[in-house]
């Protein structure tokens, strides 16, 4: 009788520990990861856009990146639609304040595009391939490491 009760208690404790372990972990998609990767990838894509137009590949100076999940209203985590506001200064000194949308999947990758359709669907002629391509500074794909230390999910 005592053995049976202790066995049940052990099973319950194991199950409880497993559920706690599963639910207590940091979500894969966090605000910290989305903001960091979006800013870094945007900067690279911007420089690449210039490079492919035959201009010096200069990165913009990103001053601020703020992203929020539009799907999860409690905290900034999880896949779905995210909105990002990025402030940067271009190589010519012009200040920009752009709003972007990111469609984040459950595997840590996303499709990002600016809310300005003129920029989103703008095409440039690639000096290397001589093809008309979508401007990388208006839309791009990105991925982030879901095991890194950027675990911030705060809405503030």
């Amino acid at each position, binding site marked *: 009788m005592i053995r049976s009760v202790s066995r049940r208690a052990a099973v319950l404790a194991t199950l409880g520990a497993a559920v706690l*372990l*599963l*639910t207590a*972990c940091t*979500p*894969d998609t966090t605000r910290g990861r989305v903001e960091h990767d979006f800013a*870094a*990838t*945007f*900067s*690279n*894509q911007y*420089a*690449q856009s210039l*490079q*492919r137009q035959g201009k010096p590949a200069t990165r913009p100076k990103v001053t601020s990146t703020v992203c929020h999940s539009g*799907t999860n209203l409690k905290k900034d985590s*999880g*896949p*779905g639609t995210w909105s990002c506001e990025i402030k940067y200064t271009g190589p010519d000194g012009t200040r920009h304040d752009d709003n972007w949308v990111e*469609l984040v*999947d*459950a*595997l*840590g*990758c996303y*499709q990002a595009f600016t809310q300005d359709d003129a920029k989103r669907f703008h095409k440039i002629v*690639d000096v*290397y*391939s001589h*093809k008309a*391509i*979508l401007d*990388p500074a208006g*839309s*791009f*794909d*990105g*991925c982030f*490491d*879901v*095991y*890194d230390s950027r675990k911030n999910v705060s809405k503030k």
Partner: protein
Amino acid sequence: MSPFAAVYRVETRKLLAQTRVRALLLFLLVVPWIYIGLILHQDRLPLETLYGRYLKDTGFATPLAILVYASQWVLPLIAALLAGDVFSSEDQLGTLKTILTRSVGRTAVFWGKLAAVFSFTVLAIVIVAVSATLAGVITVGNDPLVDVGGHLRSASSAAGLVAISWATVVLPTLAFGAIAMMVSILTRSSVLGVIVPVVIGLVMQLYTFLNAWDTVRHLLLGWTMSAWRGVMDSPSYYTPLARGLVVSAVYLVVATTVAFVVFRRRDVAGG
């Protein structure tokens, strides 16, 4: 010739003689060409698919976009079609007794069949990967590829990354093959041997795209199937791939061990 080599040789010939296997390999050879042909003849691009936006820019996007689709359901299906009836067909045709009265032991029969199936699974992956790369490069060109970090990669670097990305899905696909063999041995049914791994793959895939517990997702084969994305980033990261390969190895070893033990203990004479 060792008993293992003899079984391997015979099983390889048997697989190659099957119309289903030949049709599958031909299908994998042709499909990438049809896919990129259709993409080039339409105005829109599959922008919602990773690398879909680059399909008309560089040929190296073709094998990567196809890898996104393949890793979701095609690769588990390939593994199941090749491995799902390799043992159960012997049960249904009543040929297992004949095989086991030959001068090779059960161990050699098991590992010979397993090696033959796994060889064909790897061959199928190589065929679709090479065909997709050639289809892309020949029809679109070998222009530089943009990685998911936003950097431009030269043609040679892109070719290497494509090869590595496809190589990363070999182990999880073999794990699906091991599951198919295990089901095939446990149920003695070719239908279940093919269907069960595909259903498992679909369920795993369904869970992978749900906004559910992330820790569980990391323990599914679908996660490893998508871990190549980290290799394509700059700077690249390998933790998802390393952990995913361990998970795949666990599935592979457990399914193979169960299949081996059950096959060794099977009462063939009694039916």
